[in-house]
């Protein structure tokens, strides 16, 4: 038997940043709130537990942010990463909403790193959670429980009964037993479907089997699919996901931030046959890291190898898994499991093609190759200084873009264009409204926080009417 009340004012599906923002807000508005979290307590928080910061608009420096980051600058950044695939009204509305977030978050236990610490290039635009996203989730769960939100872990929502734009009933499963709740309003914050390999296979074929899912294994998209089947309007390209190149030795799920590698611009990248396939030095890494997931996904067996030498090793962040080292290229090929003769030939041709230049890892320098295809247009230096090092790469999926369409009150919009009476959405499940393509650090958390609070507020209004 599931210990689940038969009814409540507001039911929140999913316990990440958006779900907790919604649950806390609805509870503070006076609603009785149940939050159903698919994961056990140890893995609660969805992908939020892997995050570190959120992007905030601010007019003047704060304790946690340097300088200022205007609404228009934020909008331009969003416009540029999404190539215009964004709903301007909702995007600008979200950006304005971020300026109100810091006091609310702090009041509910969030703690931030002081400005100037952490990743320097982001300390103006992004506030960093002290201890990271899991610490933020811990604080939010504590706040929710203090307020009397009824949190149930290990509880998966399988379906929602959506009739004429209205949720009547929600069906959940806990420890194999099923139960139904009849809430007055529902907020879905259950994320995308990036952990559902079978669903990914519909678009990527068998290649999807070799994808590494950087975040939570609980993002199965069950609620998303269920709502779309019942007439919720979709948003975002269903075939697209945000994919970066990660260390192939990372866990299949939940590897998070440490699966990241940033050695590509200072390496050559080869496939299993030992051949290069793309310009590794096309642009600075923050602008190019997101294309490498797709590039590796297109390689045979979805694997590639970054190869460089001793002089370039320290240019990238330390990696969670030590680099694979060898005194010769042939030995390195053996250690990596790629064709030795081919790799040796690739490195030799590359080294001969390198033109002299002034190496500078911080800008687009003039170290490039001539006469090879593909070229390496920056940071090309001969790979000749042992020990040689290599990293195996795989596509790492961060999130999917498909979601449900919402209005600015976070109400889910149905295919007939009408807003649902009592169904709201926040977080990754609706982020595609604003982020139709690409990604910029901390914007997912910003959308979740802004829309989570709106959804909680509006759901409580409906429930208490």
């Amino acid at each position: 038997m599931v210990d689940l009340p038969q009814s409540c004012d507001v039911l929140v599906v999913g316990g990440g940043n958006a779900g907790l923002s919604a649950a806390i807000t609805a509870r503070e508005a006076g609603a009785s709130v149940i939050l159903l979290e698919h994961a056990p307590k140890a893995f609660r928080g969805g992908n939020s537990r892997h995050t570190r910061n959120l992007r905030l608009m601010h007019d003047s420096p704060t304790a946690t942010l340097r300088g200022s980051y205007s609404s228009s600058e934020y909008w331009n950044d969003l416009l540029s990463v999404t190539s215009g695939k964004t709903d301007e009204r909702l995007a600008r509305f979200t950006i304005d909403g971020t300026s109100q977030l810091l006091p609310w978050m702090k009041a509910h236990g969030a703690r931030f790193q002081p400005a100037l610490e952490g990743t320097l290039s982001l300390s103006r635009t992004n506030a960093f959670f002290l201890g990271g996203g899991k610490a933020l989730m811990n604080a939010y769960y504590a706040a929710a429980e203090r307020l009397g939100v009824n949190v149930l872990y290990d509880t998966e929502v399988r379906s929602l009964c959506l009739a004429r734009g209205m949720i009547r009933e929600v069906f959940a499963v806990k420890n194999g037993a099923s139960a139904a709740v009849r809430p007055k309003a529902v907020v879905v914050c259950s994320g995308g479907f990036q952990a559902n390999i079978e669903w990914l296979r519909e678009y990527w074929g068998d290649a999807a089997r070799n994808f590494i899912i950087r975040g939570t294994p609980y993002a199965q998209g069950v609620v998303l699919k269920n709502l779309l089947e019942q007439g919720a309007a979709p948003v975002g390209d269903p075939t697209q996901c945000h994919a970066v190149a990660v260390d192939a030795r990372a866990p299949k799920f939940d590897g998070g931030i440490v699966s990241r590698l940033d050695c590509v611009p200072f390496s050559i990248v080869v496939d299993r046959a030992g051949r290069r396939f793309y310009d590794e030095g096309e642009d600075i890494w923050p602008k190019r890291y997101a294309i490498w997931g797709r590039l590796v996904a297109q390689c045979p067996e979805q694997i590639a190898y970054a190869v460089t030498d001793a002089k370039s090793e320290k240019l990238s962040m330390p990696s969670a898994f030590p680099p694979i080292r060898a005194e010769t290229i042939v030995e390195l090929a053996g250690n990596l499991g790629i064709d030795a003769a081919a790799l040796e030939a690739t490195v030799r041709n590359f080294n001969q093609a390198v033109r002299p230049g002034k190496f500078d890892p911080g800008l687009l320098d003039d170290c490039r190759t001539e006469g090879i295809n593909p070229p390496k247009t920056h940071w090309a230096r001969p790979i000749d200084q042992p020990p040689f090092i290599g990293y195996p790469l795989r596509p790492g999926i961060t999130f999917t873009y498909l979601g449900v369409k919402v209005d600015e009150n976070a109400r889910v919009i149905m295919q007939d264009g009408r807003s649902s009476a009592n169904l709201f959405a926040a977080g990754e499940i609706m982020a595609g409204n604003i982020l139709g393509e690409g990604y910029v650090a901390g914007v997912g958390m910003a959308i979740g926080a802004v829309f989570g609070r709106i959804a909680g507020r509006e759901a409580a209004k409906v429930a208490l009417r």
Partner: protein
Amino acid sequence: MRSAEVHLRVPESAGLQQGRRLVEICNACRYCEGYCAVFPAIELRRQFTSGDLSYLANLCHDCRACYYSCQYAPPHEFALNLPKAFSDLRLETYERYAWPRPLAALFRRNGIAASVLALLCTVLFAWMAKTPSRSAAGSENAGAFYAVVSEGVMIAISGAAFLFALLALAMGLRNFWRDTNSPSALDAPSLLAAFKDVFTLRNLGGGGDGCNNHDESFSQTRRYFHHSLFYGFLLCFASTYTAAVYEHIFGWISPYPFLSLPVLLGTVGGAAMLVGIAGLLQIKVTADPGPASKLLLDIDYSFLVLLFVAAATGLLLLAMRSTAAMGGLLAVHLGVIVSLFLILPYCKFVHGIYRAAALLRYAAERPRRSQNGAALTEGAGA
């Protein structure tokens, strides 16, 4: 680079290998860098020698904030439990640096060693004590300690024990300093910063909100109880030395009245110790076992119990110095104090020495951070 490789060939303990595996993950993550000194110190390195790991393990104050905020903590397959790994490693380093080396074995037999020592010392003092005569017991001078154990014997034995402890601790400190490849010269700002860190326990604070004792919530209680014990201990020390100054410089002979400095310092210090010990024991008994090291917990308990007995017998002696029980109590208290001195270099006490040294090492390397920090973290795009 070369030397690191040579170093890696030396067979290493499972504790060191575990520590290295974990800090390499931490160095790629860096989410915890705002919590304490350990993470900025990790970020200054790419490869971790056994000396580096020893330094980091001793820099860790075991506040456990990183355990509860870690996305890779068990049951994640990385099973990242830094407080536990560092606690296990600290015990290893205590043994590795112990002088003379054979006595390192005492670390894992703290309870037994301390009890046997205390018993032997007590018996020794009791045997040496002049049997209190009927007249002494009933006279106004009943509190005259030296009527029980002669001053010379008291000073000689406890002084010898104390000097031995100092020597052994100094040798251990030297071993730590060399093994962690710490600098030979230190500047005043570093000393000042380390001094502040030691006396405020700034790092025992999960970034300012305190430790995690039982769960994800933060609390300052452990820090306050530790302060109570630590400052109480210092007051008791001050009491002893004020008494020595009274005695040998001013020629004022003990016992001193209750409102005198040595008695006040000792009373307040002893009481503060008892409060601190009780609080720390309560926290340890009820703490979440997840991030705790079973091995280190054993020596935590025996050290706390030993300090408790030392403070309690001292206070009891003070309270009953005018009664017939004084003779026996004095022998017990002196026995406990001398055995405490003797066991100091082989018990949890050393954590204070190595922690202070690690904080000093951190203070000395910290300035490098502001110059290198940018270069090290600039690449963190995602």
